[in-house]
């Protein structure tokens, strides 16, 4: 249980995002926030509540409902020296801005041979388990992680949210910052005071273990930890790695863990085909095949377009600590 100390406070993930954005706005007047309902509404999750009162409508910009230009205008701001933080209200709405992210933001530095750059953050809530139906529950990371020029961050713990959001805002290149909406208020944790940065591309071992490496990110890190703790009571030792960033990805941390435990289970909420787990599996097969004592396994969503609104459809799509524990047991006993 997280406990506040003199140099830290307990925040949930919404509060961690909010506190970090607030500090960024305070510290650098080049930082502006633009998106749908970020002004007087204060964002649909109240992340930017009252910001407009303190920083004004010029810095907290309620945009028209037009996702392509929310990102596109942020690209232009970044090229012209501002530090925009664009918000896509739900990750499901990011598709209209796909070209601006993939074709423009990610290629600005490259196509101009370094003459123009695009230092910007695109924040968006993603993920299921909240009865979000087809269009308020998707995971979008695999659509973007194929793209050189982008960085993609998916933190799960409040302290990581703060450190990685600071890193994203400071970053000289475009960063897609994915926030799992089920963790927003569910997950609380100690967050150190003051400004600090967690480098993008560094994973974190959230639980050490010796018999199986579990690699995950987002909400499922929390469920994987729950399952791993249950297995510990059954006498099995499982290591849980929180990727925190999926592009770049921490090869060193994954390989170190796999070479120790000799077994790898990758768990993600996104569907399996062409997902993040596929890339990790390929990398481990290329680098450490002969260190493995069991086939690599991926626990991921079925290959259907999305989870449904009806509870049985959502439950069937999502994993659970129990399903994860089952997979872990099988792997340990293999």
């Amino acid at each position: 249980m997280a406990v506040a100390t003199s140099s830290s406070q307990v925040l949930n993930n919404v509060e961690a995002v909010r506190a970090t954005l607030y500090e960024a706005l305070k510290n650098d007047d080049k930082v502006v926030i633009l998106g749908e309902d970020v002004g007087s509404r204060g964002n649909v999750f109240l992340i930017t509540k009252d910001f407009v009162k303190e920083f004004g409508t010029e810095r907290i910009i309620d945009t028209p409902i037009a996702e392509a230009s929310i990102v596109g205008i942020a690209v232009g701001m970044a090229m012209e020296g501002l530090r925009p933080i664009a918000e896509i209200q739900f990750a499901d709405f990011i598709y209209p801005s796909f070209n601006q992210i993939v074709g423009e933001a990610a290629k600005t530095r490259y196509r101009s041979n370094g003459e123009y750059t695009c230092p910007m953050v695109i924040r968006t809530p993603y993920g299921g388990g909240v009865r979000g139906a087809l269009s308020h529950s998707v995971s979008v990371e695999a659509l973007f992680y194929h793209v050189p020029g982008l960085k993609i961050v998916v933190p799960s713990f409040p302290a990581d949210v703060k450190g990685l959001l600071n890193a994203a805002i400071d970053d000289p290149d475009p960063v897609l910052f994915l926030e799992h909406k089920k963790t927003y208020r569910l997950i609380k944790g100690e967050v150190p005071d003051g400004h600090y940065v967690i480098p993008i591309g560094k994973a974190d071992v959230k639980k050490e273990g010796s018999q199986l490496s579990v690699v995950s990110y987002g909400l499922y890190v929390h469920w994987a930890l729950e399952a791993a703790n249950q297995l510990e009571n059954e006498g099995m030792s499982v290591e849980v790695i929180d990727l925190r960033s999926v592009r770049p990805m921490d090869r060193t941390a994954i390989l170190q863990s796999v070479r120790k435990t000799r077994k790898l289970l990758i768990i993600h909420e996104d569907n399996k085909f062409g997902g993040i787990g596929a890339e990790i599996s390929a990398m481990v097969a290329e680098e450490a095949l002969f260190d493995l004592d069991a086939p690599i396994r991926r626990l991921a969503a079925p290959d259907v377009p999305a989870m449904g609104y009806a509870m049985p459809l959502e439950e069937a799509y999502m994993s659970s600590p129990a399903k994860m524990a089952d997979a872990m047991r099988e792997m340990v006993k293999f």
Partner: protein
Amino acid sequence: MANIPTQVRKSLERHGLSDEQLRTIFRTMLLQRQLDNRGFQLNRQGKVPFALGSEGHEALQAGAAMAFNRGKDILAPYYRDLGLSIGIGLTPYEIMLSIFARAADHNGGRQFPNHYSSKRAGLMSFSSILAAHIPHAVGAAYALKYRKEAGRAVLVTFGDGTTSEGEWHESMNFAAVHKLPIVFLCENNQWAISTPLSLQMGQPNIYKRAEGYGMPGEQFDGFDPLATYDACSRAMERARNGGGPTLLEGVCYRFLAHSTDDNDLTYRTREDVSERRKDDPVPRFENLLVESGIMTGEQVAAMKQDVLHETNEATDKAEAMPFPTADDLYKHVYEGAWEPWQ
């Protein structure tokens, strides 16, 4: 086709331009055509894989460039803006580096020809994806307004086909909401590769859409550099002084195929083009300058020689430069050295 009729000017309306500025406009037009043709020649010679033409846009671009304040304004152009780009300060050598895709090109030989980028000139980098650059221009205009940099404005250009794109609409709308210092200049050349204006839009007068966004709109003869200058300078001045955005539509014509990879005889006839060639803006402006006593026939001939010489020099100099190397492929993906795996 609902065009404004092209009218040959009987007398010179200067709109405050000096003799020197009139000659500069004419020289930009000559240089654009010479460099433009050079790209096609080099392609036919097998020296470059691709070229994009801009013949027919000379008056529009040279006139608009004269309304651009160098060192202050920002240009967000598209790939047919060769004349506008040299008009705001790119050199023929820089144009040829782009055509030859040499390492010294601003883009390091990565982009197609005519996709310029120059911080020095205030020319924003852009891709080939139509209308994608328009929100960037709006973002830059927002930055100017946010920093309270009065006296600066953004000029963003596009063809008629681009006005069908969603990002064009989104950008116009946002700029109007925030009264941004930006001028949207449509170079309406009647063709989007093979698709005529009539299949691109139901209302062929593009400038009329301005009213729907809540900004002024104006149409002018894009074969007339002085009408262009007049409209652009008024709109840019309004933008620089806090008066908000304007939509301008210059009506011109695309004399060449879309690119060296396009055969325009599959969708229009030689006669269609030759009919519009009668209004060719380059000889038309030449005649006006000579008849108005701004230039003599000898001075015109000397200027043409000078432009040819400058183009030849730029061609030879750029061609002699090295290509980028295979190592350059890996540079500028992100800041610093890069590996997807850490």
